[in-house]
């Protein structure tokens, strides 16, 4: 991994963290104190790490990022557990979506490298898994399965839109 990717990732880490906790946190919608639409884009950092990044490193980074988000959301462990889960399933999703000619392991799984038709499916699957896990941890009981699904659907729509917007605006190569 060359140093430029490390620098890019570090900057992305900070920017996404700040964007998540200062802007997106305050525009989440809901009623009766029950927030149904959480806009969550910080997992984009995990999604965009280079393919060859060791799984353990991805998980540790996700854990740190999740804990940092949790500190601002005042929900210790919640985002961290979802982020670690995303990092854990990331290699499987990448394997699942592998194109016929395979990956260039030095690349990051970005829209610019692998094309939009690949990226939108990758982001959708990863985000969905992340949100399902996050809301399961948030509700913490299978009794609230309806809430879990509703929140996942609403949040998925909003978060996915934001995520694609960011990708289209900045269109990162790595």
């Amino acid at each position, binding site marked *: 991994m060359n140093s430029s990717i490390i620098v890019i990732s570090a900057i992305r880490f900070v920017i996404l963290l700040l964007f998540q906790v200062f802007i997106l946190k305050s525009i989440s919608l809901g009623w009766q104190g029950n927030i149904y639409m959480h806009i969550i884009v910080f997992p984009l950092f995990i999604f965009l790490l280079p393919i060859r990044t060791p*799984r*353990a490193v991805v*998980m*540790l980074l996700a*854990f740190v990022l*999740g804990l940092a988000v*949790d500190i601002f959301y005042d*929900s*210790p*462990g*919640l985002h*961290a*557990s979802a982020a*670690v*889960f995303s990092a*854990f399933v990331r290699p499987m999703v990448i394997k699942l979506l592998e194109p016929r000619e395979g990956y260039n392991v030095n690349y990051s799984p970005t829209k610019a490298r692998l094309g939009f038709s690949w990226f939108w499916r990758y982001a959708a699957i990863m985000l969905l898994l992340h949100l399902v896990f996050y809301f399961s*941890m948030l509700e*913490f*009981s299978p009794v609230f399965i309806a809430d879990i699904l509703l929140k996942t659907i609403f949040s998925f729509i909003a978060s996915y839109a934001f995520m694609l917007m960011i990708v289209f605006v900045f269109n990162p190569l790595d």
Partner: protein
Amino acid sequence: MGGLLQLFIRYGGILLFFLLEGICFYLIVQFNQKQHQIYLSTSNYFVGKALDRYNNTISYFSLYKQMEALHAENALLRDSLDNTYYMSSMRKDTFPGDSLIQAYRHIPANVISKSMFGGNSNSITLDRGGMHGVKPGQGVVVKDGVVGIVVDTTRHFSRVMTIYHRACRISASIPKINQHGSLVYKGDSLTVMSLDAIPTHADVKTGYIVETSGFSHKFPKGIKIGAVTLAQKGSDNNYNIRVKLATDITSVQQVYIIDRLMGDEWEQLEQRENEQ
């Protein structure tokens, strides 16, 4: 060591995943109010279930002890039945508490040895003896049944002649017609006894309840024995009555020995008459 390292290389990702999720889980249930409550109530539920199951399993080992305790308690409860008291007051319209004198006491006992019933011996051995207040001549009962009469005791054990014994005659009555006779075993099935000496002028029907009469000091009045199943008029002005026993005497394990607290007085009185 090399194996362990290989294991870690192969499964390191999964191990790290579970380690990190474990940390997250701990943080979630420790610092989030709602999740903390759910965690507590859920774990209480499962821990309670587990403890319940554990107790169910473990309680089998103390069943014998509990049975002993219940047995002793039943004896105490039987002691407070109506028919175990002697009423020294003449008045019946009030309840003179201090005029009730305990006339019978129950000693809980276990059957520790049985011989074949219906044969020659017809005796059982109980694990209570002289040191518990068991004396020859005392009656032995179970719920809804009479077992027999104590014939011999040692310090710790006692020998009981059961109702199947040739020499055993138990005073029994049919309360519906106020007649009494003696219950003997005449070699039928072990659940059927004969009731002798009921005169033919009485109207005995099948289904009538047979109880202890209370005319012998061995048993208090009103212990259920069984029901009449057959009543034939015999040649000697007496009925041939068959009584179906309410309880299977051959299978009992716990019995109550009846200690007659006023029996000596009673016996003395009857003996004095014989001497004259």
